[in-house]
């Protein structure tokens, strides 16, 4: 052995690194590399196909986003929500429109044919694709990746370095968001990023600023409403908590500050449409189209799952269906939200290493309830509960396997959609990257948790999902001729099963397993 050592020194140099890296704070090397890996994955994903490529006359989400650049740049504000609504009429709130306007200006400066009114429809110029990809990445970088970085730094005190590095990278490359934003093509990262900024502000007790951020999220995509109830109860809890401790006047003052910042932000965003009552009505009508039906396509939610047994659409009118779904959603949201409200009444005196845990759990439970039970759900909406689930992973290890299974299943549930966009290969690849880095070890290699039975079940689930993905990709015809979309239905059912169980699990964790980690790493049971 001594001889071996001698040759080693001559050949490789004798460094003899310790097995574990020295424990140091968040290093700039790891942050820089994580950001670069995140950008690299986003860019390489951008080289693949997108929604609606080569499929005239309507194309897909890519064309919708491009079309909004066109109408916001070329038309007066009054016409934004009215112009030729049959062809991808604008149906997102005003902030998306302003975002499109800004990008439209830049596009117009580079190449006017990209945003020429009507003439640019279906433009599939390679450079246009590149331009749009860049805009998605820059938007993501400025709003979402920055928020992720700040959030991870904020709650990195109680972890070892190798953990921090993995968790930051993991939060930056969550495959679901990457695949939809930089593959399929949308700007969800903006809405999710604003929400995360809200979470960061709450942890730092910047309530007014936080409310502004949440309004921006709402103003970018109405889907942020999935978060609205927990957010409302949280802020209410904050105000009531202040009132309880420092008197009703202080509580009212806090409420007024939050209320004014919300009203101001909303007012500024909607100001161009304030001219007439009708204009605001038109915007609202475009944003909330109730007429479309209970669910689109095959979605992994409650209504789609029970439709196999009970045809709700036949039994009830659309109006009563809306009422039923609102009732069911509220029933599912309220427990977690009310728990959040009470937890804010008496916040802990000590500083927590994971101050956002309760808020994130409630956001997750609230939005997952919306996904499972509300009206008009799209399969991409799973991204909304996915964000707090990812951040919970990045914050503490307590929910490691739940988060891994959730992220993996969420990507799986969007597989039929992504496969149509020509993204089957990167979907599998990114899911694997996530699981190599974090998912598999957290489920199968961590000590104690989860129980052996759960591990076996997850193993079985992964095997089932792999088989389905394989069949969907390579066995082109459904084995049962009567059911042409068998794979999609099975996919929705499996995903619904997992989401439903995770919903119960996360609710259980929030309501009964509250163990805040105190700075310094010691765990303390409060209940």
């Amino acid at each position, binding site marked *: 052995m001594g001889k071996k050592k001698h040759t080693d020194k001559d050949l490789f140099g004798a460094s*003899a690194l310790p097995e574990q890296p020295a424990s140091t704070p968040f290093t700039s090397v790891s942050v820089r590399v994580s950001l*670069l890996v995140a950008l690299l994955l986003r*860019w390489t994903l951008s080289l693949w196909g997108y929604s609606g490529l080569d499929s005239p006359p309507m194309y897909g989400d890519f064309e919708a986003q491009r079309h909004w650049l066109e109408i916001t740049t070329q038309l007066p504000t009054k016409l934004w929500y009215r112009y030729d609504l049959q062809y991808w009429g604008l149906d997102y709130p005003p902030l998306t429109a302003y975002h499109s306007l800004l990008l439209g200006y830049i596009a117009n400066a580079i190449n006017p044919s990209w945003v020429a009114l009507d003439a640019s429809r279906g433009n599939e110029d390679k450079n246009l694709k590149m331009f749009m990809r860049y805009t998605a990445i820059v938007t993501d970088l400025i709003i979402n990746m920055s928020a992720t970085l700040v959030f991870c730094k904020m709650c990195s005190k109680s972890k070892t370095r190798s953990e921090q590095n993995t968790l930051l990278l993991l939060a930056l490359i969550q495959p679901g968001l990457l695949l939809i934003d930089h593959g399929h093509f949308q700007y969800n990262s903006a809405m999710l990023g604003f929400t995360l900024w809200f979470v960061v502000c709450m942890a730092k007790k910047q309530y007014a600023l936080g409310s502004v951020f949440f309004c921006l999220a709402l103003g970018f995509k109405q889907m942020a409403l999935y978060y609205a109830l927990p957010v409302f109860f949280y802020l209410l809890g904050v105000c009531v908590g202040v009132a309880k401790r420092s008197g009703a006047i202080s509580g009212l003052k806090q409420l007024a500050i939050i209320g004014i910042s919300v009203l101001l932000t909303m007012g500024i965003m909607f100001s161009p449409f304030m001219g007439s009552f009708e204009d605001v009505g038109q915007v609202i009508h475009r944003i909330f189209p109730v007429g479309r039906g209970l669910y689109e396509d095959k979605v992994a939610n409650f209504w789609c799952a029970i439709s196999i047994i009970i045809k709700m659409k036949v039994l009830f009118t659309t109006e009563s269906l809306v009422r039923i779904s609102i009732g069911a959603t509220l029933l599912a949201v309220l427990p977690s939200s009310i728990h959040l409200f009470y937890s804010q009444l008496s916040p802990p005196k000590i500083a927590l290493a994971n101050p956002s845990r309760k808020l994130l759990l409630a956001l997750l439970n609230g939005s997952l309830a919306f996904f499972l039970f509300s009206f008009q759900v799209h399969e991409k909406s799973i991204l909304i509960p996915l964000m707090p689930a990812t951040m919970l992973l990045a914050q503490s290890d307590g929910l490691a396997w739940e988060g891994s299974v959730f992220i993996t299943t969420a990507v799986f549930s969007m597989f039929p959609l992504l496969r149509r966009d020509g993204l089957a290969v990167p979907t599998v690849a990114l899911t694997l990257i996530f699981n190599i880095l974090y998912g598999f070890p957290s489920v199968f290699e961590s000590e104690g948790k989860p129980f052996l039975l759960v591990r076996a079940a997850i193993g079985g689930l992964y095997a089932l999902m792999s088989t389905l993905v394989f069949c969907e990709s390579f066995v082109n015809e459904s084995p049962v001729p009567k059911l042409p979309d068998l794979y999609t239905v099975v996919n929705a059912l499996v995903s619904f099963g997992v989401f439903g169980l995770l919903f119960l699990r996360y609710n259980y964790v929030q309501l009964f397993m509250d163990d805040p980690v105190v700075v310094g790493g010691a765990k303390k049971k409060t209940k």
Partner: protein
Amino acid sequence: MASLTSGPLALFAFAAVLKVVLFPSYHSTDFEVHRNWLAITHTLPLHKWYYEATSEWTLDYPPLFALFERTLAAIAELTGGHVDMTISQHARLDTHTLFFQRASVIVTEALFFYAATRFFKHMNTREQTIRVALVFCSPGLLFVDNIHFQYNGFLYGILLLSIYAMWENQFLLGGALFAITLNFKHIYLYQAPAYFVYILGAYCFVKVGDKYTFSLVRLIQMGLTVVAVFIASFGPFFQHLPQIMSRLFPFKRGLCHAYWAPNFWALYSFADRVAIQIVKSAGGDDTLGDVKSLTRGLVGNSVFAVLPDVTPLHTLVLTVLFQLPSLYLLWKKPTKAAFIDSLVLCGFSSFLFGWHVHEKAILLILIPFSIVAARTRRHAQIFYILSCVGTFSLFPLIFKATEAPTKVIVLLMFAILAHHYLAILTPTNTENLKKSSTTTVTLGLSIIEKMYLYGLIPLFVYAEMLHPVVFSRGQLEFLPLMMISVYCSNINTPNMPAPVENIAYMDAVEIKPTTQQLKAAAAATMKETSSVESSKKITTTTTTTVKPQILDSQANYFSNKFI
């Protein structure tokens, strides 16, 4: 909790999946070349392989590579016949074929990965992972293999296995493996001298008592082994040897490749261009620059306008001349360390002075070097500069705007990670002392070296962003390439003697004359090049030759003081 540093296998899986996401990136005509070879070996009988000339992408690699393509074709057949294997004059592209070929690169790279792990298998997981990453995650190889498209990965795998066998004193196995590498791709001939000398010195001379005696038996054993490999490879093509040779060694190609490789001839050609302008402005012959000169970027015989022309013989003499010092050292003391240094330097001289060198050949230096990159701090510094600049010099290979972010991000990632880990792997004594108080590590590059590396940034900005805007009608389209090559060759040329210095450190008595020889040679080359270039070179040369001694003396001082 597993993370990036949890083991080499996680690293491989991560890299492989990342490369899968790179599938739709730009690919060069080399992709078409390999597809065509797949078609040729699939559809034609063996004896027609080297005669097929429907397209310009004829088979011009040695027989083992042809057999490799034949195997791939058989596998492609098994996967359901979606792979397009028709011989065609024109490029054919469909997604199945692209994915199949791209995937085959990633799968065969497993051999390279395996070879890299062999060297470090006795180290702890963390160090093993870092060192394997330095070898396996070469950004240059990623550009050439996974984007540009070639199969270098598994070839370097065989080469590394061969080096490893030599280190383990399994000389016959090592020799056979090297012969196999040669029969896959003959570019490795550049490194044959080092093998030859090492086998002769370390294997054929046997120590009997105090004396070394020559063992003819061993030489014959080795000879037979190598010849057997060649017979197995070329045997089936016995009747077509002249045809194969004309394909393997096309001396009709010019001195420099269509893109200038960043070597000595880039400086030489640059000097020629400068000289043309000087002669013109001095009222000389106005038609001077009209010759089909190198700056036009054409493949073909190059003609210099002012400076003397260069023939293959000149390049051969120069190459051998610059290989001699390291080979001499290897001969005097055939150690394992000297062997790999000599391999690197042989690759280096051929890269700098060879005929029709392609910029991809930089890998021939970087990959063997990466094994021993962390031997000393000075090794690490040179390896770092060389890899960054060498990788940058590959940028023109992948010229599409869609790949620009990929190139930049990959190189930046490498630059940050390699800087960090090379510094950790090569702690100097001063750093050991300070370790408790400071957490940041640096590689300790000199100001000039740093400025040189940072200089790549404005060069990139000009070549890839400003140039197309400034000359929007395509004038001077080869100017950026020339700039990149000249800039990059600047570091390659003077840095060459440096690894020898490190042998010198370990073997202080023998090196002195050689170092001086090299310095003299370097000075001689400087005279030939233009004055602008040489001023830069002198500074860099001085740093490379003086610095190691300073560092080492510092190290000695500290170790003496504290032991």
